[in-house]
Structures are given as structure tokens and as C-alpha cells.
């Protein structure tokens, strides 16, 4: 094991002396101008306005954070709070907190606070920013949260280029749960779940989140910084402010990865832990800017309270009065009910099953029938078989057209079966009600399907459609025959339905000819001596 993989404080000897240097102090660490005289301790540094004065959401010790001495979170919190102050966005800021040591961000930040489920902060942040584009949304996450359980959420938020800022605090371990191995744990680093040190053979390699996300096209700014010494802290502070500023300018997704010490779990003194960040972590996770597209992107002011996908200009939302029209449910846009109401002395009870191969127009045939029924002032239902979009799949649907309220849309015993191919006939022929009809697309009816208690119209409808100029009209030829047989629906309703469902006038014309041909074929078959009774009378 090389020295860079050693983690215990006893064996680690730092090489870089950490000497506070006044010149290196970044903005945000200036001495306080007004210490609170009521407190029995001294405030060494000024409090950012984006922090609460007292941490009242904490149960006790409301003057201090819950973070351990030497923990990086306190430093990162302060840099983030300063950036919020400097950019003047405190009122607009929404901080989405993670699960992990920084679960209590809402104790400290005087901004809108939302606590998210483990790893899901980027998804939560996505929705908040999309719906409230004027807000400044920060997803604050640790390395277990972001790079393990939340790896999908961060990847896709970055890939969508959400205009959010992600602060990613990487301490190479699960700290809050007591020091288990994280995706970011260094090779050889001991944890409670890698007691002999992380091995590439069994735990894989440390995950390089910044490098990984930099391969995407959408992110605008990705930088890895560290808290290894004051110089690095200063750089981290600048990076965090820049990432936030990118969002304020509407540039897009920014992520700052911060290599951060965890003295408690690493079992080091705060000073050694800081040195370890500088001397060891950095070797696995090199610092630097991995992605910077700030100059390529056009700044977008998000002052408008309107929703828009990232990269598009916000549009003004329509008025409520416009909504029904947009949805196509405004009264004036709808077909007139009972447009061609049928008057019948008999109760109408038409139950149709239409079956065939996918692509034969099974569902459309049923839809035209149902639309026409509605136009004729009748009760209707249309129920498709649905399935995966697969080659040579079968398709069928049930249509009910009735005078009375339809109890169930299911059709167990149709009084008309439209079978567009032989497998469909064989599947459903037994279900047809005695006295009902089978309209079959085939030269001749298979002998072993023959029933003496149903009527049959078997014709090569596909071939007949070919003669009309398009095979695809065979469903409409069969519909024509069905309409002539049942005699329930007025032609005007069929015409209205067809025009609602078929937009191309060429197809409307062809379909009308096809239906007329279907009607003729049925009449011709009557002359040929086929026994039949129109359905409307049968009921």
C-alpha cells in the first residue's frame, strides 16, 4: 500500500504545513463588525445574512452547527451563504437538502428550504426550477447521496441541462451512517464495510463524478475544488459563487465538487484531515475546471414567472378562459350531440367485436362506428385490446351502441363479429350470439367454423378494396356491409364520424366509396339467396 492510501491519523504524516495567511483569506471570512453582546461567546467571523441569526430549528445549542470540529460542511455552508448574499438572491433561493450529514441545511440557511429523499435532490430541484423559473435552486449533496443512490438523478438533471446549482461535498465516505464505503472511497481506504481497505477487484474504482458529467453536452460549468488549505478554500469560494451566478444569469447546469475533510470518520485531527485532503484525496480526484461553457451560452433573464424548458424563452401562460379551447373541450369545438338522432321503435343493442391483424384498421373501424353512434344520439363505448407494439400482432376492439345506458363496455357475446382474418374468426366465432352475424374477410368460410345459428357474409374484402384502389380500405368495405346489415346508424352520422376521424380528404373520399361498395356487396349477396334479417329488427 502506498502512502497515499493510508488513512489512519497515527500513520499519516502531513507534508504541507498549514499556516493561516491573512493575504489568502477569501471574501466572507472577514472579522465580524458587530458581535452580539448578549452572547457568552465571541463571534470570530461575520455571519452571512443568508444564515439564520439563531438556529431555532435545532433543539439545543442553537448558536452552533451540528457539524464536527474540522468538518468541511461548515466551511462550504459559509461560502454558499456568502455567495447568496453577494448575488442578492436570498429571497429567491430554494435550498434542497440531502440525506447525510448535511440533512439539516434547513437549520442554518435563511432561505426557502426543502428536504429531499436520499439522492433525489436533483429531481426535486428540477421540478422546482421548472415551475418557478425566477427562483434560484441549489441542490446540496454529499458523495453517498449524489454518486451512489442518486447517480441516476444527478446524471439526468445534468444531461437535461437544468438551470440549477449543485454543491457536491465529497469526503470519500458515508459519514452520517458511521463510515461505510462510498463510490468515492479511495483505493485502499478503510471503511466499516471495507475493513481491509477498498479493493478495485471487489468494490471497483473511485467514481469521478466531475469527469463523468463533463462528458455531457448540456452542463455549463463543472469544477472540482478542495478544502485542503486556505488557498484552496479561497478558490472553492470563488467557484461556488460562480456556479450560483451562472444560474442567476440563466446559463444552465453548474456543479462544484468540493473535496472535504471528515476528521471524525477518518479518525484524524482536523489539521491532519485537512492535510489528507490536500495530499492524498487530490491525487485520486485532481482539482480543476472540467467543463466551462459559460461563454458559449446566452444569458437568459428568468424574471418572468412562466415555465419553460431550459434553453427556451419563457412564454406567457394562456388565460384560464383559453384553457378549454386549448384542450379541445370547449363547448363550441365539440360535435353537436344527437346531430342525426335515430328514431327507432325498438331498443337498439348493437354489440360488435372487430378483430384482425395490427395495421388492418381494426381500431379505426370501431372508432368510426362509436363516433357515428354518438352522433346518432345513442349510448356508445369502445374498448380496445391493447398490447405491445409487435410485428404480426393481433388487434381487436369491442363497440357497443345502445339506446339505454351501457352497463359494461365489455362484449362477451357480440351480435356482430367482424373478422378480418382467419385466426380472428377462429378465436371469436363461438362467441357470436345465436341469430347474430359474422362478417368475414376471406374467399370462403372455413367449413369447421360454420354454425347454423348465425348469419354469415364471407367475401374477399381485401381483394375488393384492391379493386377500389387501396388494400387499406378493406376495413371500410367491411364497415359498409356492417352498416347495411344492421341498418341502425344513419349515413349522415357515419359521414360526420368519418370526417372527424379521418383528416385527409383523399382518404375520406376513398373510405366513402369503400363503404358504399360494402353496402352494395351485402345487397348483392341477398340477391344470391343468403338468408338475413336486419339486426335492428332482431332485437
Amino acid at each position, binding site marked *: 500500500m502506498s502512502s497515499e492510501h493510508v488513512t489512519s491519523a497515527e500513520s499519516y504524516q502531513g507534508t504541507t504545513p498549514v499556516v493561516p495567511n491573512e493575504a489568502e483569506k477569501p471574501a466572507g471570512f472577514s472579522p465580524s463588525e458587530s458581535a452580539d453582546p448578549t452572547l457568552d461567546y465571541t463571534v470570530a467571523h461575520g455571519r452571512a445574512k443568508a444564515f439564520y441569526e439563531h438556529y431555532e430549528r435545532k433543539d439545543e445549542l442553537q448558536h452552533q452547527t451540528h457539524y464536527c470540529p474540522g468538518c468541511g460542511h461548515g466551511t462550504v455552508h459559509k461560502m454558499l451563504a456568502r455567495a447568496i448574499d453577494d448575488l442578492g438572491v436570498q429571497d429567491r433561493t430554494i435550498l434542497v437538502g440531502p440525506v447525510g450529514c448535511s440533512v439539516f441545511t434547513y437549520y442554518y440557511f435563511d432561505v426557502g428550504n426543502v428536504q429531499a429523499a436520499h439522492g*433525489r435532490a436533483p429531481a426535486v430541484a428540477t421540478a422546482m426550477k421548472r415551475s418557478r423559473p425566477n427562483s*434560484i435552486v441549489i441542490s446540496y449533496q454529499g458523495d453517498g447521496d449524489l454518486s451512489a443512490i442518486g447517480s441516476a438523478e444527478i446524471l439526468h438533471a445534468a444531461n437535461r441541462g437544468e438551470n440549477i446549482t449543485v454543491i457536491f461535498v465529497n469526503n470519500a465516505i458515508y459519514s452520517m451512517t458511521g463510515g461505510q464505503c462510498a463510490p468515492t472511497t479511495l483505493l485502499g481506504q478503510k471503511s466499516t464495510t471495507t475493513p481491509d481497505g477498498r479493493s478495485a477487484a471487489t468494490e471497483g474504482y473511485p467514481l469521478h463524478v466531475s469527469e463523468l458529467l463533463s462528458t455531457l453536452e448540456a452542463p455549463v460549468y463543472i469544477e472540482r475544488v478542495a478544502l485542503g488549505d486556505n488557498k484552496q478554500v479561497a478558490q472553492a469560494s470563488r467557484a461556488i459563487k460562480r456556479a450560483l451566478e451562472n444560474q442567476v444569469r440563466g446559463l444552465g447546469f453548474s456543479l462544484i465538487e468540493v473535496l472535504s475533510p471528515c476528521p471524525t470518520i477518518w479518525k484524524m485531527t482536523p489539521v491532519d484531515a485537512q492535510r489528507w485532503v490536500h495530499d492524498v484525496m487530490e491525487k485520486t480526484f485532481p482539482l480543476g475546471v472540467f467543463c466551462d461553457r459559460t461563454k458559449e451560452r446566452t444569458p437568459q433573464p428568468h424574471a418572468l414567472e412562466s415555465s419553460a424548458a431550459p434553453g427556451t424563452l419563457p412564454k406567457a*401562460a394562456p388565460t384560464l378562459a383559453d384553457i378549454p379551447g386549448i384542450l379541445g373541450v370547449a363547448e363550441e369545438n365539440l360535435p353537436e*350531440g344527437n346531430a342525426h338522432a335515430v328514431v327507432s321503435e325498438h331498443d337498439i343493442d348493437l354489440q360488435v367485436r372487430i378483430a384482425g391483424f395490427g395495421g388492418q384498421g381494426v381500431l379505426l373501424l370501431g372508432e368510426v362506428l362509436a363516433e357515428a353512434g354518438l352522433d346518432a344520439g345513442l349510448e356508445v363505448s369502445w374498448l380496445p385490446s391493447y398490447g405491445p407494439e409487435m410485428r404480426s400482432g393481433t388487434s381487436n376492439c369491442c363497440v357497443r351502441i345502445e339506446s339505454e345506458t351501457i352497463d359494461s363496455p365489455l362484449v362477451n357475446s357480440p351480435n356482430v363479429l367482424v373478422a378480418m382474418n382467419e385466426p380472428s374468426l377462429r378465436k371469436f366465432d363461438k362467441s357470436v350470439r345465436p341469430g347474430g352475424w359474422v362478417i368475414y374477410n376471406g374467399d370462403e368460410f372455413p367449413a369447421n367454423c360454420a354454425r347454423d345459428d348465425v348469419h354469415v357474409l364471407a367475401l374477399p374484402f381485401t381483394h375488393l378494396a384492391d379493386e377500389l384502389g387501396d388494400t387499406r380500405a378493406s376495413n371500410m368495405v367491411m364497415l359498409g356491409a356492417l352498416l347495411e346489415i344492421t341498418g341502425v346508424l344513419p349515413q349522415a352520422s357515419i359521414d360526420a364520424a368519418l370526417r372527424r376521424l379521418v383528416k385527409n380528404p383523399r382518404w375520406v373520399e376513398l373510405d366513402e366509396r369503400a363503404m358504399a361498395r360494402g353496402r352494395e356487396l351485402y345487397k348483392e349477396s341477398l340477391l344470391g339467396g343468403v338468408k338475413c334479417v336486419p339486426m335492428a329488427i332482431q332485437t
Partner: protein
Amino acid sequence: MRKQLMKGNEAIVKSAILSGCRAFYGYPITPASEIAEAAAVFMPKAGGVYVQAESEVAAINMLYGGASAGIRAMTASSGPGISLMQEGISYMAGAELPCVIADITRGGPGLGNIAAEQGDYHQVVKGGGHGNYRTIVLAPHSVQEMADLTALAFELADRYRNPVVILADGFVGQMMEPVAFPQKAIGSSMPPWAVAGTAETRPNMINSLHMDVDDLERHVRALEAKYKIAEQREARAEEWCTADAEIVLVGYGIVGRILKAVTAEARANGLKVGVLRPITLYPFPVVQFQRLAFNARAFLVVEMSNGQLVEDVKLALNGSRPVEFLSRVGGNVPSHEEVLNFVHGLARRTVDEERMANV
């Protein structure tokens, strides 16, 4: 009011937008995908947000974010996707966030199949996520109810600050029926608790974490009290020919439709049969069950699952009447004949038992 022919799945989206919903986060799954597809078309046109999430896990957490921002928001999925959402549903119930989730159920367990089944009853009605919470569950049985109950779902979600699930089977989602939208389009105002990135909402916090045990107990008790109010006020059921019913058929969703057809036939055969169709599965319409138990000799629960609804019926009746059970699973649907035969058998047995008791 003019009606138009529309799929149940599409009716959900149109009703949602009319109800002020302005955000949809989804992930494709049969037989619920039309909901996402319709949302992708109409949500942006209505000035709302549509995001196709990377998973149902992300989708439900986007819902958490949208709801936190004070937006009326929804998602839709089917069994396997709803399983993945359970974590987020628990968080939303814990953080008291309103939202609407449509579950257009399919066959299970596992990948099961894509046919209509009702096996999601337990995971949705009893809450498949962790912790002490409930979700309000509405069960439409027609396209018109898909529209009407979606509007109600948004209302209840806001009133109780709680997730509301529309539990519909693949049939109700996929079928087309005439539907009307008599309601005016409404907007939604900013809830006082939302976190919306404004000065007024800056002090607000959305959170489900309560480290202190007493604090969490208070929170859970407060949720319970809220659910109790919902139980008293929001239970809904449809009664069909129940005035003189001696045998009460019980089923929700598409089964409710089948039971109505069976009732017509059974009554034509001289049997006093009626239907009690729960519209809210939580809160369960316990009072309606107890009221019908005065006249009914027996209840027959029909479900497209392996005995999930029947448990709630038994709890509601608390042993006061016999509860019979007929189930089909795997995507098979109980046929009229199958149910009718069962009803005839049940009627004979009930009469025999009565005769025996009188001897």
C-alpha cells in the same frame, strides 16, 4: 352539455389541466402511457411543465419538488412504476404535500403482463411505502368518472395536503366513452406553506424529518387526526338497485360495470340483487356497507385480484353478514355468466340456509 368520445387516460389529463394542474412528470409504461403522451401535448400549451423523468423514482421526486413549489402537479404510471414511487409517496405524505398520482393497473407480480388487473389494491390502498401514512384513493369505473374524479382528486389533495391516487384498471384507462367537462377551468393560488423562491415563502420549509421522538409522535398523531376527518367526510360509494337487495355485489372499477350488467340479468331472473361500488377505496365507505347489511343476506365481492378488496369488506361488515368471494387474476375478467352463476348458487344457498334455520 355536448359530449365527445375520449379515452379514459386522455380524460385524466384534460380534467387535470382544467383543475389547475400545471406540471406533469412521468415515465412511459403500458397501459398508462397515453396519460404522459397527452400531458406532453397539452401541458406546455397550457403554460405548464412536462418532464419525462429518467425513472419513476425521479418522477415521484419531481412531483415532490413541484408540490413543494406550490404547483398542482401529477404523475401517472402502472403497477411496477407505482412500486418504485412508494418511497416518494411516503415522503410526500410525511411532508404533507398534495399531489395526484394515476395508477392504471396491469397484471403482476413482477413484470406480470399488461392486461387489466386489480392487484395493486394493497400497495395503493394500504400504502406500499414505509411509515404511518395513508393515501386517499379514488376508483373510477367510466371515462366520465376519470374526468370527474381527477377534478375531485386535486381538490382532496389540497384539502388534506396529502397524495391522492386515482386507481383505475387498464380497461378504464384504454376505453373510449362519451365524456363532458362541464367545469370551468380554474387556476391554483399559492398555498401559504409553499417554498416558491419568493420573499413571502422564504421562511417556509418542506420536510418529513422529525429527529425528536416526541416530535415525530405528535406529527404522526396529527396525520392520523387528518385521516380520521377524511374517513368521516370523504367516503363515497355508488349504490345500484340496492333498495331491496338481498344479495349485494361489491366491486370497483371495471368490475363495477360488469356487476351492473349482472344485476340487470339477475333481476330479470327474479333475484333481488344490487351493487355497492366503492368510489373511494380509502377512506373505505364503511357506513354504506353497514347500512346495506340491514336488508342484505349476503355480500359477494368480485375482484380482479386475489382477495384484497374482500379484506376491507369483511372489516367493514365486521362479521355481521357472510361475505362471499369471486376472483379472476392474470388479466382475465370475470364474465357476466360466471358472476351470474355464482349469484344463482349463492341465492340458492342463502334460501336453503334460511329454510334450515326455520325448521
